[in-house]
């Protein structure tokens, strides 16, 4: 279980607090722009040190660990693939960062590419793929990495509505059992795939609430955000 224990995030005048645990399953992170959704994720990923509090995975304290040492995979808004490496190499990085892949690793990469609908694309470079296919390749890397936490920071924002829905359904289907935090600015995304929702607004990240219950009876801050 991912626990944010009394987190206090400060950046100049900006301040954000978070104090809760996140269950396995998909949890959407919504809130106005500039509220600190991405900052919250980068603290969990280890890119930004909190001023106070701890990030825990089960019983181990992650605070201070390097990003690559955490049980966390992350998809960014862009630059999720290295343009000079093939799709197979990009995905293989999720297994072994030094790319010394064994035969069994290769089989796993092929398998995962099949699962995201990219069978036969292994030897292409990202530039030869469409935007939707690139998202699938990045997702494939999260799948092989087999880390229990996946942080998705609006990775599908540049896709059209149809493709985005498709990708979110793929996430729901393939990342089953992991703890997924999905930043989105579209409440419909949350309604579509999220089990729970974290609302980030006015300097605080509220504990996850059941999606249906939250939207049925939105609290004051969410009502202001939804307009």
């Amino acid at each position: 279980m991912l626990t944010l224990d009394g987190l206090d995030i400060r950046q100049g005048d900006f301040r954000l607090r978070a104090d809760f645990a996140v269950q396995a399953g998909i949890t959407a992170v919504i809130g106005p722009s500039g509220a600190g959704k991405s900052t919250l994720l980068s603290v969990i990923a280890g890119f930004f040190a909190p001023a106070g509090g701890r990030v825990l995975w089960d019983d181990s304290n992650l605070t201070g660990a390097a990003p690559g040492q955490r049980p966390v995979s992350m998809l960014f808004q862009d630059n999720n693939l290295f343009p000079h490496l093939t799709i197979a190499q990009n995905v293989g990085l999720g297994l072994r960062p030094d790319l010394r892949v064994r035969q069994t690793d290769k089989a796993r990469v092929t398998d995962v590419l099949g699962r995201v609908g990219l069978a036969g694309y292994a030897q292409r470079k990202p530039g030869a793929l469409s935007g939707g296919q690139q998202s699938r390749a990045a997702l494939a890397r999260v799948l092989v990495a087999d880390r229990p936490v996946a942080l998705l920071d609006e990775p599908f924002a540049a896709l059209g509505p149809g493709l985005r829905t498709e990708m979110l359904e793929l996430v729901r289907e393939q990342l089953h059992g992991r703890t997924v935090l999905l930043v989105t600015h579209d409440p419909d995304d949350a309604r579509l795939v999220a089990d729970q929702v974290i609302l980030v607004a006015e300097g605080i990240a509220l504990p996850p609430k059941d999606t249906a219950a939250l939207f049925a009876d939105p609290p004051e801050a969410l009502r202001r955000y939804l307009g």
Partner: protein
Amino acid sequence: MHHWPGMTVAAIVLAVLLGSLLAVGLRADNFALGPADWAAVRFTVTQALASALVSVGLAIPVARALARRRFIGRGLLVTLLGAPFILPVIVAILGLLAVFGRGGLVNVGLDALGIETVSIYGFSGVVLAHVFFNLPLATRFLLQGWLAIPAERFRLAASLNAPVGRLLEWPMLRVTLPGAFVVIFLICLTSFAVALTLGGGPRATTVELAIYQAMRFDFDLGRAALLAVVQFSICALAAVLAWSVTVPDGFGAGLDRTVTRWDGGHWWLDGAAIALASVFLLLPLATIVWRGLPGLLVLPDMVWAAAWRSLVVAVTSAALAVGMALALALRGGRLVAVVGVLPLAASSLVVGTGLFLILYRWISPATLALPVTALLNAIMALPFALRVLGPAVTQVQTAFGPLADTLGLQGWARLRWLLLPRLRRPLGFSAGVAAALSMGDLGVIALFADADRATLPLVMYRLMGAYRMEAAAGAGLLLLILSLGLFWLFDRGGRVDADA
């Protein structure tokens, strides 16, 4: 990334530059400068001032013409303006001799008209050669300034019928000119090869040339050390001067466009500026090829041996320069910024003298001539390599650093799978520049080498000194081909098959 490679490189560069300085400082026991020494100081400073003044002054009309005229071959000409930077000095001087020398085209013409001929040796020759090298550089600096004026300003000025010169161009020049002037002044303070070939005698000896003569002819190490301290002081003063003005960036891209203007101006004036500058730059190059071709067929064996040594030195030096620059760029920070600028103000003759003083007690300097040359050339090329690599490294780390971090891509794996592939173009370009600079270098090698360890520029200089002009011309063409060829190969290697 680990910090130790960058720190190691910084330590090596500082040890070589400051250690050699310490060596000359300790050796220079007698701090009294004689009249000849003062004459050398005066000549060094006045020729550099004159060279910078003429280069920048002539660059103004040329850059202005290039900024506002569109014509066939303009792109090629702008590219060609970058060529003298990697052109071996000794080769260019051979070309200048063919045009302005005793039996050169200009004097033949003057003679035919019954006008007194001119001499390329001494003050005017040194300035002429410096203008040949630095007029293109100054033109590129100023062209960049012109093209940095937004097109909208010209449109606004045109609609107001305001004077473009006073409103837009003069303010730009006031910012750009001092930087260009200081850079060229610094370059001319430390251009040993020009003084070696065109200077000399009591009225045209630079401090660097005096160091060389004290070492090679008189073996007066105390005097050489004293002169090295003097040369260092001059450079340090100039560097402080450079620090206080904005120094332009000579590698700027995007010089291949023109700005649409409405103020007209005399097209024939612009045309004349471009034509004269082109002839001045291209004629010497053409004569190198023209006169070198016959000599290429009858090159003495020692030229081929020297060419091979030069190639090895140049490639080694390029590898060192690029490796060191990459390590420094990955380390970043203030210390690296200092280490990256320091060689610009260093004189390779001063550093060479210092190293000579440190080494000669234990080992014959001649045996170390080639390794020392490769290392010093690499250090001297460091600022240019760092200028190119620094921003590129920052860009890669910004775009792909977070992804690499979450994947745990560190150390060698990060170098191999992220940095080297993404940096291929800047790596290739800076390796090309470093290789060409080293290939054409005639500085420290002249202090260290004997006949068996001479590089191609040094052999060429000795052939010229022995008046074997055909062999010298052939060697010059070979050197030109090798320098430009090395640059082209490295630069091309960085571009071929590079993924966007």
